[in-house]
């Protein structure tokens, strides 16, 4: 499967949307080479604003652009943008402004290590009313997602990894916000992933099916907020238990949101795969994912426990 860095897909899309929509302006916090917004900067220097290493002012400036009728795209590393400028993002959501926050370096960043990892950004963002939060699973989905958010009004947050995911969708894939996307059918256990969580689930399912002699369904839920509750329940209701997977901490992220919805509307046993009680460390991203339990063995172990609670 051909892979493309999601950041490159983002950077190229910006150039395209910059051409078709004159109101799009792009702001970055001295990270344009890493986030790939430099592609837009090169093409449309008048509509690119390097705001320096100052995320608060970058977001505040974006608010000013938004109330002036522009469509500001704000970029930077996920944790700095969501964390340092959180209250400005809150204000964008408070006033329901048309602002697109698209960050890179979500999850494990690799060598830069724990200070730069974004394992908490979903927690920060998920508490904000009006904000729509998206976490794509491949670059096809990312493109569809980007097309969607520039057609839609209001605040959006998209988190992109530093790196590539394999393609799991066809070109004719339709992104429907909030809607679970079944990427593999199965009967016994439903793995619900977001971002890399989906890739991991899809990659692990055949192995676990073979080892445990069960059938696994894999659902991609790239829309962390909002979630179409009835569609989600429809997809999980024919299985016996759900495992949520995310490249994020398990405390207040994707899994927590699923747990709230599922426990309220269709209670069933659940397990959570994500980073536990850690900020991570430096290292090769794949090795880090494995080290912190985002691997086949860990999923299998969780499913075994899940099956025990199902039998009770």
């Amino acid at each position, binding site marked *: 499967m051909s892979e493309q860095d999601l950041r490159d897909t983002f950077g190229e899309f910006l150039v395209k949307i910059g051409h078709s929509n004159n109101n799009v*302006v792009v702001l970055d916090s001295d990270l344009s080479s890493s986030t790939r917004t430099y592609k837009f900067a090169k093409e449309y220097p008048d509509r690119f604003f390097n705001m320096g290493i*100052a995320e608060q002012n970058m977001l505040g400036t974006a608010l*000013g652009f938004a*109330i002036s009728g522009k469509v500001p795209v704000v970029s930077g590393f996920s944790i700095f943008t969501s964390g340092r400028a959180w209250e400005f993002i809150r204000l964008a959501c408070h*006033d329901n402004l048309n602002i697109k926050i698209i960050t890179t370096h979500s999850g494990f960043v690799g060598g830069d290590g724990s200070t730069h990892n974004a394992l908490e950004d979903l927690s920060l963002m998920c508490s904000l009313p009006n904000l729509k939060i998206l976490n794509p699973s491949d670059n096809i989905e990312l493109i569809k997602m980007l097309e969607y958010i520039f057609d839609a009004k209001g605040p959006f947050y998209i988190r992109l990894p530093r790196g590539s995911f394999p393609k799991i969708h066809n070109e004719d894939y339709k992104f429907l916000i909030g809607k679970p996307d079944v990427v593999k059918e199965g009967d016994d256990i439903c793995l619900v992933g977001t971002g890399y969580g989906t890739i991991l689930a899809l990659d692990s399912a055949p192995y676990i099916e073979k080892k445990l002699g069960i059938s696994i369904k894999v659902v991609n839920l790239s829309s962390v907020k909002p979630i179409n509750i009835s569609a989600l329940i429809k997809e999980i209701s024919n299985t016996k238990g759900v495992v949520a997977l995310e490249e994020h901490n398990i405390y207040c992220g994707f899994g927590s949101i699923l747990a709230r919805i599922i426990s309220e509307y269709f209670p069933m046993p659940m397990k959570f795969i994500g980073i536990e009680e850690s900020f991570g460390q430096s290292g090769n991203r794949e090795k880090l994912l494995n080290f912190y339990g985002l691997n086949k063995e860990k999923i299998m172990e969780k499913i075994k426990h899940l099956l025990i609670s199902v039998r009770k």
Partner: protein
Amino acid sequence: MTLSEAEGKKILHDILGIKKDILKMIFQAQSGHPGGSLSCVTIIYLLYNNVMRINREDPQWTERDIFVLSKGHAAPALYAVLSKIGFIKRKDLFTLRQIGSDLQGHPVKNLKIGIEISTGSLGMGLSIGVGCALAAKLNNEERLIYVLLGDGELNEGSIWEAVMAGSHYKLDNLIAIVDRNGIQNDGSTEEIMALEPLAEKWKAFGWEVIETDGSNLKEILQGFERCKSIVGKPKVMISYLIKGADVSFMQHTQKYHGRAPNEEEFTLALKELEDIENDLKRGIPHNE
């Protein structure tokens, strides 16, 4: 800008009326920020009445200048001025801070009544102004962006990020006003987190600094004229205003920064403002 005696008198009269409304609103709500509302109301009134390009018939007129009240706790002053110029019905003023009211404790975006963006969490307004100013330049619009800052909120680091960006992008359509009343919630600005030498700080960041005596209408108006005329860089007016201005027991104290007057205080405050109004009618100047 020249101001005839009659015009000056009319403005002072209007401001006194607005000050009475501010106190009534806060008294009725039994919460709010009288000190910082009374200090900056002169600036807000002059902006809307004399300085900014607005259309009194249409708060959403597309060519309007933009005003951002970064010190959102002075909302009563903004609301009362917006009422005076006709964007808010006067009777609505007295719904301040009540459930269901458009007039929240701090301003909430509502273009129908002339509020461009929500503010109140301090330190955010100047960045918003930077964005508006950049957008106006990008659109080749003539409009000017005015941001009223409290001096206390200059403690926030985000303000200085915006100050840097303003001069970096040479935003000569951006005019900041600092309500330099010298008092923040817990005490004097110099005790809490010293700001001085404040003018030099702004200058060092590349801004044109204009200092005005906040009790001198002509000086403020001339200051704004200068702000409009200087090109190539952003401008800040540091206006030396008085916390709780014109109510003797609210002046120069943090006591009424965020506290409503009780009935006795309210009655006394109104009487003091009425006394000044009467003096004004008889031609007795309040300020030298």
